[in-house]
């Protein structure tokens, strides 16, 4: 490693950090701390001028007794596990099939960046239109094959699947790009040696490529898991969490508790549960990065 550390310049080190640290502290950390504090209070949006009332763990008790909250946990887990599994499988298979440089590959990789860059609001709108019961193209094309029509966003049994499909559309490219980058790290000489030794494709795949990209796959899975727990906007603009609570993931449940039911204390308790879940997943990434730091 290059020599890049010069100890003993402490003042500058802190001075350069200070502005960013101040913004992170005031705009992210203080609000997060406030959220944790508020989760022990009863406070309604209707009485913002009044001081919140301390009620201990009452919000948490109410939360875990609530049918809707438990349902939102179930929906979140179903949604997250489905999208992570499908996206990892599709993205990896696609990357393995399209590995290597050939004409047209660059344009294709570029196209695959598009869904990731487009605003979640716009993605929600696009899919809402495609799923439209009477003039959406999905029902039209399926109708040509004699299937359907389905109420993609109005049928509570199907709505979650529809939302999962939209997420898979947007984020499979992300997995594809990461795995493709990981595959570029597989040393060429080892691949060539194995071919000379008579290894067939399944053997090189199982014994060389997959072990090499295992770390990338793991990190991608954690990143996608965290992101899927955070996702809200696409679903919100497609279904608003409905019909009923069939697509109401935890983040939408939080938002509705705060701004529809106007119960800020209870919503903060949801925020704490969501925060702890994500911190748990994130600790894997942090551990991994700090390990690199020591090297």
């Amino acid at each position, binding site marked *: 490693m*290059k*020599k*890049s550390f*010069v100890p003993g*310049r*402490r003042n*500058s*080190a*802190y001075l*350069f*950090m200070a502005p*960013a*640290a101040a*913004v*992170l502290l005031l*705009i*992210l950390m203080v*609000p*997060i701390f*406030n*959220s944790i504090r*508020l989760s022990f209070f009863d406070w309604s949006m209707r009485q*913002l001028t009044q001081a919140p009332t301390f009620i201990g763990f009452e919000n948490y008790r109410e939360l875990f007794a609530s049918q809707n909250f438990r349902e939102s946990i179930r929906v979140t887990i179903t949604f997250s596990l489905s999208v992570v599994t499908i996206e990892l499988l599709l993205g990896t298979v*696609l990357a393995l*099939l399209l590995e290597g440089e050939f004409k047209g590959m660059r344009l*294709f990789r*570029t*196209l695959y*960046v*598009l869904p*990731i*860059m*487009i*605003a979640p*609001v716009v993605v929600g*709108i696009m*899919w809402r239109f495609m799923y439209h019961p*009477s*003039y959406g193209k999905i029902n*039209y094309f399926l109708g040509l094959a004699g299937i359907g029509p389905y109420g993609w966003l109005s049928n509570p049994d199907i709505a979650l699947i529809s939302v999962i499909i939209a997420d898979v*559309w947007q984020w499979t490219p992300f997995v594809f*790009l*990461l795995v493709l980058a990981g595959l570029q*790290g597989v040393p060429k000489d080892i691949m060539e040696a194995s071919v000379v030794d008579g290894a067939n494709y399944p053997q090189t795949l199982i014994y060389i490529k997959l072990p090499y990209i295992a770390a990338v796959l793991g*990190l991608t899975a954690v*990143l996608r898991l965290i992101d899927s*727990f*955070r996702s809200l*906007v696409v679903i*919100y603009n497609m279904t608003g969490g409905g019909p009923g609570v069939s697509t109401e993931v935890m983040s939408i449940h939080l938002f509705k508790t705060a701004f529809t039911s106007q119960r*800020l204390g209870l919503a*903060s308790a949801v*925020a704490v549960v*969501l*925060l702890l879940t*994500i*911190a748990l997943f994130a600790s894997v*990434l*942090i551990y991994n990065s700090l390990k690199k*730091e020591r090297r």
Partner: protein
Amino acid sequence: MTFQVKKNLTLTMKYIMILIGAALVLFPIYEMISTSLKLPVDAFRLPPKLFFVPTLTNYQSVLFESNFFRFFSNSAVVAVSSTAFSVGLGALAAYSLARWNFGGKKTAIAGILLLRMIPEVILAVPVFVLFNSFRFIDGRVGLILVYTALNLPFNIWVLRTFIMELPYELEESAIIDGCTDFTVFRKIVLPLIGPGVAVASIFTFRIAWNEFILSLVLTNRFTRTLPVAVSLYLTDTGTEWGKITAIATIIAVPAFIFTFTAAKSLIMGLTAGAVKG
């Protein structure tokens, strides 16, 4: 089967896969853009007409509705300002973390990584309460502050990896010549990490331009940004798909521009942290 035939078959299979993949990725985008260019009669016609006379009617009615330019300029001001602040402050902090050892550095790094994962929605309640008690503050200022903060962790992280790859000798000789740390940073380091600044800027702009939930909470009908405006359109007038897709297409324009001009930087930014460094 000869080797050549087999190779051609593999290549053909790859192209078929690419065509199917590209079609799947592009179809929803094509649907959005083509609907925005159709009159209602054409937009809802089934079977769809592949060739239709494109019209800018939807764009005209969207653009000449008095509020569009207000929302557009709100979005632009918020996105550009938060990009400038977040990348600037991020670069400073990144330089410190890349070059110097100081007490609490490990904690700072762990904290930055953790803050990078914070869901926006968790901030909705406390940030709403915070800015509600400072009612005199414009919602746009609130958004600029929040987006600056939200993007700092990623910017610090990406810029730090770029700085760590620079050889230290240049900076060393400048310091021996008597330059202050800030001059070294501004005159030597910053010009050399241009690609990193580009990656950080595009990603910050993208988040600030696209963000929905905090903007919904913090803005009113004057300070609203485009994503919130189009979403409210969706619930107000459920059937005006022509106008809705027109605004949606306008929101997506920066995404198209960035993708087709800087795909390589974008892929680097997306893979940062997972594949390398």
